[in-house]
C-alpha cells in the first residue's frame, strides 16, 4: 500500500517517540498536526506533555528546544515555514550550532528542527522560500533535505538519533507524494548522497523536490538518446563530494539544480567544491539551474514563470551535450 509523505513522516515520528521517551514534539499547533498535519493524532497517543503546542515565538521555542536538548531531552521542533526561521536564526546560529564546540565537546544539542520549504502554489513571498543555503554556511548545523517519502523516513530517523542539531527541510510539494514504505525500511546514514538514476552522459545533482524533477528530465532526455545520471544529495551539510566526483569522473558534465535562488545557493558551493576536486575530469563548465533573483510572487502565472523545473534542466543538459 502506498502512503503519503505526511503519513510516512507521521509514522517515523510515532515510531521514534515510542522507541525513545526523551523525544518531544514542540511547535506551533503541533498537537493539532502542525501546519500540514504531519503530527496529527500523535497527541492522542503520546499525550500533551510530549506533543506541545507553543506560543508563536520562534526565537524562544528554538532556545527552549536547545536548552531541553542540552539537559537530556531530544526535541523535535517544528518551524512552520522555513521563511520564519529568520526569527530562530540567532539561536540556531549562535547557540544550537555552537555549544558542542564552545564547550570543547562536553555538551551536545541533539535536536531536529523540522521545517517546510519551497513554493507550492500561491503562498507568495513570505511562505515559499528555499533558504537552505544560509544554514550550510554555519559550522555545527546538519542540513537534510529529503526527496521522497521513503527517503524522508530513513533520513529523519538518522537525524533524530544524531547528537547534533539538524535542520530537516521538507518540501511542501512532496507532502502529497505517495510511496510504498518497505517493511524493512531503516535509518539512512547522513552525509551520503544517493545515485537516484544511473547514466553516462551528464550528471544532474539535485535535492528535495528537485530530484523528482530531475528524474523526469532524465526520462525525457533518454528518449533523445542522452543518458543522465541523477544524484540526490540528501544531506546538504555536510556534502558528500566523493559520490559527486565519482559520477563526474564518469559523465564529465554537471548540472546542479535546485529551487532556491541560484545566486549564493547550495549549487554555488557544490560547483566550487567540484571545480576544485574534479577540474581535470570536467569537459564543460558546471551549469546551475535555480530560481532567478526575485522573490516568489503570488500569481500562479508569475510563480510558474520563476520556478525552475524540468524544462530548465533539459535545456541545461542539452546545452552541455550539443
Amino acid at each position, binding site marked *: 500500500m502506498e502512503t503519503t509523505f505526511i503519513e510516512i513522516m507521521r509514522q517515523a515520528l510515532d515510531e521514534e517517540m515510542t522507541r525513545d521517551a526523551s523525544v518531544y514534539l514542540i511547535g506551533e499547533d503541533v498537537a493539532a498536526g502542525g501546519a500540514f498535519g504531519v503530527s496529527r493524532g500523535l497527541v492522542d497517543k503520546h499525550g500533551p506533555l510530549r506533543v506541545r503546542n507553543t506560543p508563536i*515565538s520562534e526565537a*524562544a521555542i528554538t532556545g*527552549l528546544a536547545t536548552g531541553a536538548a542540552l*539537559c537530556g531531552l531530544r526535541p523535535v521542533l517544528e518551524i512552520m515555514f522555513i521563511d520564519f526561521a529568520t526569527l530562530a536564526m540567532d539561536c540556531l546560529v549562535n547557540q544550537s550550532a555552537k555549544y558542542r564546540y564552545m*564547550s570543547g565537546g562536553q*555538551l551536545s544539542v541533539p535536536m531536529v528542527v523540522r521545517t517546510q520549504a519551497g513554493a507550492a502554489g500561491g503562498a507568495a513571498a513570505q511562505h515559499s522560500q528555499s533558504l537552505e543555503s544560509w544554514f550550510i554556511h554555519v*559550522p555545527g548545523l546538519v542540513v537534510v533535505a529529503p526527496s521522497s517519502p521513503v527517503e524522508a523516513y530513513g533520513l529523519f530517523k538518522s537525524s533524530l538519533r544524531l547528537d547534533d542539531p539538524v535542520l530537516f527541510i521538507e518540501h511542501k510539494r512532496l507532502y502529497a507524494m505517495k510511496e510504498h514504505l518497505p517493511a524493512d525500511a531503516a535509518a539512512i546514514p547522513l552525509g551520503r548522497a544517493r545515485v537516484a538514476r544511473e547514466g553516462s552522459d551528464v550528471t544532474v545533482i539535485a535535492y528535495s523536490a528537485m530530484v523528482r524533477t530531475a528524474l523526469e528530465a532524465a526520462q525525457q532526455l533518454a528518449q533523445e538518446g542522452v543518458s543522465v545520471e541523477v544524484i540526490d544529495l540528501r544531506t546538504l551539510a555536510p556534502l558528500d563530494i566523493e559520490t559527486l566526483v565519482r559520477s563526474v569522473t564518469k559523465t564529465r558534465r554537471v548540472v546542479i539544480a535546485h529551487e532556491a535562488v541560484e545566486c549564493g545557493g547550495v549549487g554555488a558551493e557544490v560547483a566550487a567544491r567540484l571545480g576544485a576536486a574534479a577540474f581535470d575530469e570536467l569537459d564543460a563548465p558546471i551549469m546551475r539551474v535555480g530560481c532567478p533573483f526575485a522573490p516568489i510572487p503570488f500569481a500562479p502565472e508569475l510563480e510558474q514563470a520563476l520556478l525552475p523545473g524540468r524544462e530548465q534542466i533539459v535545456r541545461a543538459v542539452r546545452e552541455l551535450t550539443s
Partner: protein
Amino acid sequence: MQRKNDPGERVAAMLRIRRFEEQCILLSKDGQFPGHYHVYIGQEATAVAACAELGTDDFVFSNWRNHGHLLARGAAPDRMMAEILGKAGGYARGKSGTLHMAVRELGVPATSALVGGSLPLATGAALACKRQGRGVVVAFFGDAALEEGACYEAMILASLWKLPILFVCENNSIPPAQRQRGQYTSSTLPAAQLVDVPQALQIRTEAVDGADADALAECFDRLVAEVRSEGTPRFVEVRCTRWPGNFPLWPELPCGQWQLDWAFGQSPDRADLATWLEQSDPLLLYLRKIVAAGGLTREQVQALDERARAEMAGAVRFALDSPFPAPEEAYQHVRAEQGATL
C-alpha cells in the same frame, strides 16, 4: 559546594570569587589573554546565595559575567583560569574563553554571551527538569536582557507551562540610595520597575538588595524552595551597584587588590572606591556585620582570605603552566564523533 548559612563558608565563597577576578584583571593587564572580559566584583553575594540553594540535579545558566556563578557552583578555579587564558587545561581546552565557559558535570550547560540569550535555553532546561521529575533551573542575566524580545517569549513559556525556573536579573548599575524596593526607575525600560514586566506575565517577583548578603540568602532560600515545591517560575531582581573598577572599557583595580583592612577602619584614597566600599560592597558589608556579631573573628577572616589568595595564585600558576591547545584541535568538536562519516 558551600553549606547553607555557614558564615565562614559564605565569606570564603565570596572571597574566592573576588580574589579570582583580581587575578583575571592582573593577567589581562599583563597581556596573558586577548579579548574582552567581565568581572563579578561587587556581585559575589548573589551567586553565592543562589548557588547555596542548589543540588546536583539543578542547572545554572549564565551570561558573559559568569566567573562568579561558576565558582559558586563549584567549578575549579585552575581550570577556569586556564580556559580564560585559552589553554589546554581549561574546561573547553581553550575553545570558550571567558565568554562561554560551561561545566557539564556541574550542571552549568551554557553561558551565553548573547544579551538575554540564555533565558530561552534555561526555560528549555526547566522543561527537561519538569519532564524528568527532578531539578530546578537558575538563570542569571543582566538588566539589559529585558530589552530583548526572546526574554519575554521565554518568560511567557515559563509562566504558561509552569516551569521550575528562577529568573535572576542582576541589575548592577543602580545608585545605592535606590536599591530598596519601589525606588528604582529603569533608564532602559518604560516600565516603572523591572519586576513589573514578569508580573504582567503572572510570574511572582521579588526585588532584593544585592549588597546585603543576609537578605540575599533569605530571599534565595525562599524563592528556590518555592520553585522546587510549586514547580512554577519566580523572578528576582537583584539590585546592586557596580564596582568602580568596572567602569573603564577594560576592568581595572582601583587602588590595587581589595584589602581586608578596608573593612576594619582603613580606607582607600580614591573617593569613588571608598564610597562604593562603604555603601555597596556586599563582601565588606557582610564581613563587618558578621565580625561585629561575633559570627567570625577577624583572624578567621584573615585566614580565609589567605587561603583564597593562595588558591587563586595556584590557579594562575596552573593556567600559565598549562600548554596551549594543539592547532588541529580547532577542527575538533564541530560535530558529533559518531557522525564520523559526516
